Structures are given as C-alpha cells and as structure tokens.
C-alpha cells in the first residue's frame, strides 16, 4: 500500500506544480521529493532490516537514520551541482519541505502498520506530528541552513562541509530514535528535542532581525 499512497499523494501535487512559479514551485517540488524519498527509504530499510535481522544491530537506530538523511538531503546536493552556489536562506525552507514530505509518507506507514482506532489513533497521530515529523523537517533543515552558511566560502570546502553536515543530521536522528524507542524517561527528552530544534532554527533563520551584529564586530 505504500506505493499506492505515494502515488495518490504525489500525483495531484504534480498537477499543482504546473501552476506554481518561483519559490512556491521550488518548495512544493521539495515536498514531493520528500514523499518520494519516504517511499524509497521504506523499501531500502526493509531490505536492510532483513539483512541484519540475525545480528545484534538495532536497525531503526543504526541503519535507518543513515538511509533516510541521505535520501532527504539528496535534492540539496543536486541543486548545488546544477545551479552552482546561487542560493539564499530559502534553502532552509526547501530542505525542511523535503523533510516534512518524508514525514507525511512515514506517518502513513506507521498509522497503517499499527491499525489504531478511536481516540488513541488521534493522540498517536498528533504526537507523531509534533515530534517525529518535526524532527524529520529539522534534520534536513540543518543541512540546508548549513549550506547557506557556507555562502562565500571557497568551493573546495563545500564537499567536506556537506559531508560534515550530513553526519550531524544522521547522529541527531539516531539519538532521537534511540531515546524515543528504547527509553522511559528519555522519551521526554526525545519529545522536546524536535521542538527545541525547530525554535532554534526559527531563531537562526531570523537572526539578522532578532540579533543584529554589534557594529564593532570584526569581520
């Protein structure tokens, strides 16, 4: 049913893309990519789970974050290759759209898997909406904002920084999965982590307005 849901969700959006222009089109394209990444990750993760089923590896903690973060951030890397370094802080929003697109499909996977009903399903969906979904958006947004920060750096630094940002996103994602899935008290921290990251990203996105640099700052 994953492929069916993916097609049902993304095909109408392709029609909408035709009417959109500029920034709106870019944001929706990234959202659609996120949905696609969710579907691809589902199949890759499933195969890897089978591969490591008989080992001590905990796949949702040690494998899934790597696959998912690479797939979600893929269009950012393509964007850099195709269009060069012509970007603004909009990159954070685009990256976040990719992460949220991914989260939409993943939410569907989990809801159908657990077959919840009644008020329990509503609570579950709301909790996922403000924790895991926000986490997916924020992780990719970290990479997007990190790339924006490198504006003006020499071109040779870029691959190293992209790789570094990807490792940061993977590690935070793994830490989140570990805390939310395997702890009691740690769950509270895991629930707060995405919202905290979201506020942090909101602050840095608007930092020029919120915290103008001191005039005497050495550049």
């Amino acid at each position, binding site marked *: 049913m994953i492929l069916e849901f993916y097609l049902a969700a993304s095909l109408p959006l392709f029609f909408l893309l035709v009417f959109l222009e500029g920034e709106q089109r870019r944001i929706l394209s990234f959202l659609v990519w996120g949905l696609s990444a969710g579907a691809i990750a589902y199949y890759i993760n499933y195969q890897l789970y089978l591969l490591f089923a008989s080992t001590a590896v905990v796949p949702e903690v*040690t494998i899934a974050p790597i696959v998912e973060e690479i797939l979600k951030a893929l269009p950012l890397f393509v964007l850099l290759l195709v269009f060069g370094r012509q970007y603004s802080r909009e990159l954070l929003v685009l990256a976040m759209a990719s992460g949220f697109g991914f989260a939409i499909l993943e939410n569907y996977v989990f809801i159908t898997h657990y077959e919840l009903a009644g008020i329990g399903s509503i609570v579950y969906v709301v909790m996922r909406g403000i924790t895991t979904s926000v986490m997916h958006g924020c992780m990719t947004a970290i990479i997007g904002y990190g790339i924006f920060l490198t504006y003006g750096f020499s071109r040779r*630094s870029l691959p190293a920084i992209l790789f*570094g*940002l990807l490792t940061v996103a993977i*590690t*935070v994602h*793994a*830490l989140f999965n*570990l805390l939310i899935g395997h702890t009691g008290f740690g769950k509270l921290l895991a629930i707060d982590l995405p919202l905290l990251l979201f506020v942090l990203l909101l602050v840095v996105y608007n930092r020029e307005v919120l915290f103008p*640099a001191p005039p005497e700052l050495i550049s």
Partner: protein
Amino acid sequence: MTSPDPPIRVDVPRTPPVLFTVLSALFQVLLAVSIGLFGVVLVVPGHSFPGFHDLSNYTQLFTSAMVTIACAYAYARWSRDVLLLHAGFAAGGWTLANAFWYSYTLIIGTSLPYPTVADAGFIGVFPFLIAGYQEVFARNRFPSWIGLLVLCPLAAGALWLMADLGVTPATLLTLLFFLLCGSLVVVSLLYSVYLYRVLFLGTLAISLTHLLNAYRSTVLEPHWLFGIVGPLAAISFALLGIGLLVRTKEALQ
C-alpha cells in the same frame, strides 16, 4: 585661518570581555582534569578507579559541548572568524556522536557495534576542521609530497590490519579514519596551523585520539593502554577550545 588639526587616533587594545576570561579559565580547568584522568590510566594500578569511565565520559561530553557553545557565542558576538563556525560544527557533531554512543551503551546494554552511526559523527570532525583550516589559513611553501610522509605509513598500518583481520566494514572504516586523521595533520602542516601552537596541539591530539579509537574498535582484545583514548579526547577539545580563544583574542585586539 588654518583648519584645526585632526584628532590623533590611538589604537588601544581592547580588554577581552569577562566571559572570554571565564571561558579560557574553564578550558584550562578541563584540560587539567583531563590530564589527571590520562595520568590515572598510566599510573594507577588497575588503570582505573570506581566511576572512572563515567567521569571520563562526562568530561569528554562537557568539554566538547563547551567548545561548541564557545565557538557559537564567539562567532555571534566577538569575531566573524569562519574557523569558529567550522570548529563549532565539528565539536557539536562529535558531542552528539559521543552522547549517542554513551546513551546506546547505557540503554541497549550491549556494546555498540563498529562501525555504526556514532562513527559517522566522529568522522564528521575531520571534514569540518580540514575545510576550516583551508578556508582560514594561507597555504605555505611546504611541498605537497610532505603529505605522503604522513599518509603512507598510516595507510600501510590500516592495510596491515586489513590483511590480518580481513576486508570487513570495521577494517574499511579504520582505513578511512586513518586517512582522515592523516589528512587533518597534513593540512595543518601545509596551512601553517602550527603557528597557533595550542590549536595545532589540539589538532594532533584529536587525530591521535581517533587513530587509537579506530584501532581499539577493530582489534578484539585491545591493550589496557587504549584506556587513554577517552581522556585524550577531552584533552583534544580543551586544547582546541583554548587555541580558538587565542585566535579570537587576537581578533578582538
């Protein structure tokens, strides 16, 4: 009628802010604690004491987290030195990776397999620092082939491990760690990072830490001496923190 003389401008070095002094002192205290823990492994019978590993882990986590915070604050308020950004991300990623490693060990209960996600975070330190040094420091006149003197022995060591233990994900990752550690040392030599002695020492220490850690994680029964890895990581970050503050102080003045 003559025009009045323009006022004479005297550049007086600015006194570093109080927070700057506090941060410098904090990193010096952390360095002293880390060296103490390092000494425990070497000197104390049994190479440990009750609670040693917890203390070592907390010191590492606190030191690297403080480097992240210090870099972020210094970049925002004191100096637009892009090395602070790079080092901040490097230390932040490392802190998260170490937090993950420690949490996993506590929560799941078994030792974390190698390679794993935590290693992705540990690896992340190297690209950030390499890119940062290349961005900030000028290339000196040392010939590039000097790098081979560092990289070849390290690659040979990793390949020897591979020949001994087979081509596995663990030995392949160790090869990657060895090459990245070597590359960081080479870049810091070719880009005159050694002019900032403390920063250079921190760079060497962090490379050595990950070389030893990669080797320790690959071989099945490591020697007790590898217990120095934890304290050495804390020493590395304390030195990096002090070194970065020295650069920031120069910019402030």
